[in-house]
C-alpha cells in the first residue's frame, strides 16, 4: 500500500464515520460539527485527486461561511429532540424502504460497472506548475459560458428574493439613521443659556 493510498483510506474512514455521526448524534450542534468534519475530510480527498481549487473552495465556502451560519442558528434554537423522535418506530418501515431505494439508485448510477478503470483511464499526473484554477476558469468562461451565466442570474434572483423577504416595515423596531448621527452639530444638541447669578 502506498502512502497516498494510506492517506486516502484514513480520510475516507473519517468521512464515513463523521457522515454517520451527522445523523446519529442527538445534539444538533454535534451533528453540525460532524458535518464540518465530513466537509474537511472530503476536501482532503479532493486534494488527493489534484482538484486543489475545488478542495480549498469547499473549505472556504461550506466550512468557512455556510456552516458558520448553520451553527449560528442551531445554537440559538431550543430543539426538543423528544418531539422530533416521536413516531420513529411507526415510520421506520417507510424509512427503510426509502433508504433501500436511494441506495439502489446510487449503486445503479455510480456502481463499479459504470466507473471502472476500464471505462475511464486513470488521469495522467500533472506537473507541479499545473494550475487547476486557471484551467477551471478557462473552461468556465468559454465552453460553459451560458450555463455559468444562467446559474449566476438564478443566484442573483435568489439574493433579491431573500432581501425582499426582509424588507418589511417594522414600526416597533427602534432605528437610528447613522447618516443623521454623523452630521449632528453642536448647536442641535446644546443650548447655551446665560443666566443671572442668584442673589441671596
Amino acid at each position, binding site marked *: 500500500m502506498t*502512502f497516498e493510498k494510506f492517506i486516502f483510506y484514513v480520510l475516507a474512514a473519517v468521512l464515513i464515520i463523521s457522515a454517520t455521526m451527522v445523523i446519529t448524534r442527538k445534539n444538533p*450542534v454535534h451533528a453540525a*460539527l460532524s458535518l*464540518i468534519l465530513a466537509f474537511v475530510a472530503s476536501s482532503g480527498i479532493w486534494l488527493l485527486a489534484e482538484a*486543489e*481549487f475545488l478542495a*480549498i*473552495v469547499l*473549505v*472556504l465556502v461550506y*466550512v*468557512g*461561511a455556510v456552516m*458558520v*451560519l448553520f*451553527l*449560528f442558528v442551531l*445554537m*440559538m434554537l431550543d430543539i426538543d429532540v423528544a418531539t422530533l423522535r416521536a413516531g420513529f418506530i411507526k415510520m421506520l418501515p417507510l424509512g427503510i424502504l426509502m433508504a433501500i431505494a436511494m441506495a439502489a439508485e446510487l449503486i445503479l448510477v455510480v456502481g463499479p460497472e459504470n466507473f471502472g478503470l476500464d471505462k475511464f483511464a486513470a488521469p495522467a499526473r500533472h506537473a507541479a*506548475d499545473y*494550475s*487547476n*484554477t486557471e484551467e477551471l476558469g478557462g473552461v468556465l468562461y468559454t465552453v460553459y459560458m451560458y450555463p455559468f451565466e444562467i446559474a449566476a442570474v438564478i443566484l442573483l434572483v435568489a439574493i433579491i428574493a431573500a432581501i425582499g423577504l426582509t424588507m418589511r416595515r417594522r414600526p416597533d423596531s427602534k432605528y437610528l439613521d*447613522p447618516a443623521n448621527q454623523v452630521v449632528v452639530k453642536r448647536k442641535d444638541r446644546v443650548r447655551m443659556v446665560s443666566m443671572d447669578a442668584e442673589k441671596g
Partner: protein
Amino acid sequence: MEFFIGLWEALPDGLQTVIWILLKIIAIILPLMICVAYYTYAERKVIGYMQVRVGPNRVGPKGWLQPIADAVKLMFKEIIIPSNANKALFLIAPAITLGPALAAWAVFPFDEELVLADINAGLLYILALTSVGVYGVIIAGWASNSKYAFLGAMRSAAQIVAYEIAMGFALVGVLVAAGSLNLGDIVRAQSGNGGLFSWFWLPLLPLFGVYVISGVAETNRAPFDVAEGESEIVAGFHIDYSGMAFAAFFLAEYANMILIAALSAIMFMGGWLSPFQGWPILGPLFDWVPGFVWLVLKTGLFAFLFLWLRATFPRYRYDQIMRLGWKVFIPITIVWIAVVGLAVVYQLPWWFD
C-alpha cells in the same frame, strides 16, 4: 559528526523529507512565537506611552522579560473546566483557534525563494484557513455553557462572516490585478521602476483600506472587539478559560494579527521589494538591503497600526459594525473590482501594462 551523517543517510527517503519539512516548520513557528511574545510586550509599551504611562518595567531591564514571566505564569495556572461544560469541545476549541493561525504561514513567502510550500492557490489557502479559525471562537462560546460566552460567540460569528466577504472581495481585486493566486507572483507583479508607487496600494487604494480594516475586524481587535467586550459581556467567548487554554486564544489572536499585517505588506505594499526600486539615486543606495528586512519593516508598520488603533478608538456599536461591513465595504469592493478589471483589460499604464 561522521556518525550523524551516516545515521541521516540510513533513513529512508520519505522520512528524510518529513524531517526536513518538520525542521522548516519549526524554523517558522519558533521565531513567530517569539514575535508574538514580544508583540504583546510592544502592545503594552506602545499603549502605555500613548496614555502617558511607562508600561511594564519591572521584570528584567526595561521590562524585557515580562512576556516570559507571563508565559510561565499562564503555564502553571490551573485549567478550570466548568462542571456543565461540554468537556471535549471545551478543550478542543483553543486548538482549533491556534491551528489555522499557525498553518496559514505555510504558504507565506518571506523572500524571493524562502517559502515552505509554494502552492498555486496560496491566496485561497490563506483565506480558507482564516475562515476556519472562527470555529474556535464559536465552539468555545457554546461549549462553555455560559450566557456571556455564548453572546460573545454569536457576535463574533456574525461579525466574521460579514467582514470575510469584504476581505475576500478585496483579495479578488488583488488577484485580478496580479493575475495569480500565488503570493510570490503577487509580489513579483508589483515590482516596477516606480519603487513604492508601483505597488498595489495606489491603484487598489479603496481595497487596501477595506482589507486592513476588515483585518482588524477579523482578528476581533479594538475597535471591533465586541466578541470580547469586557465592559458588556465581561470577556466574551473566553470568559471560562484559564491557564494555557486561555493562552492558546491569546497566542492565536496575536499570531493572526501578525499574519494580517504581513499579508497586507505582501499584497498591497510590495512584500520583500525595496521601496526605492528603480529610483535614480536612492535605488542603488539601498540595493544591499535584503528583501526580508523590507518585509519585516512593512509588517512592523501594520503591526504598529493595530496597536495605534486600539489606543485611539472607542469600541464600535454592534449595529454600526454590521452597517459598515455590509452596506459600506461590500459595495466599495464590488465597484472597485469592476474598476480594476477594466484597468487590467485596457492595460492601464504604470501598473498593468
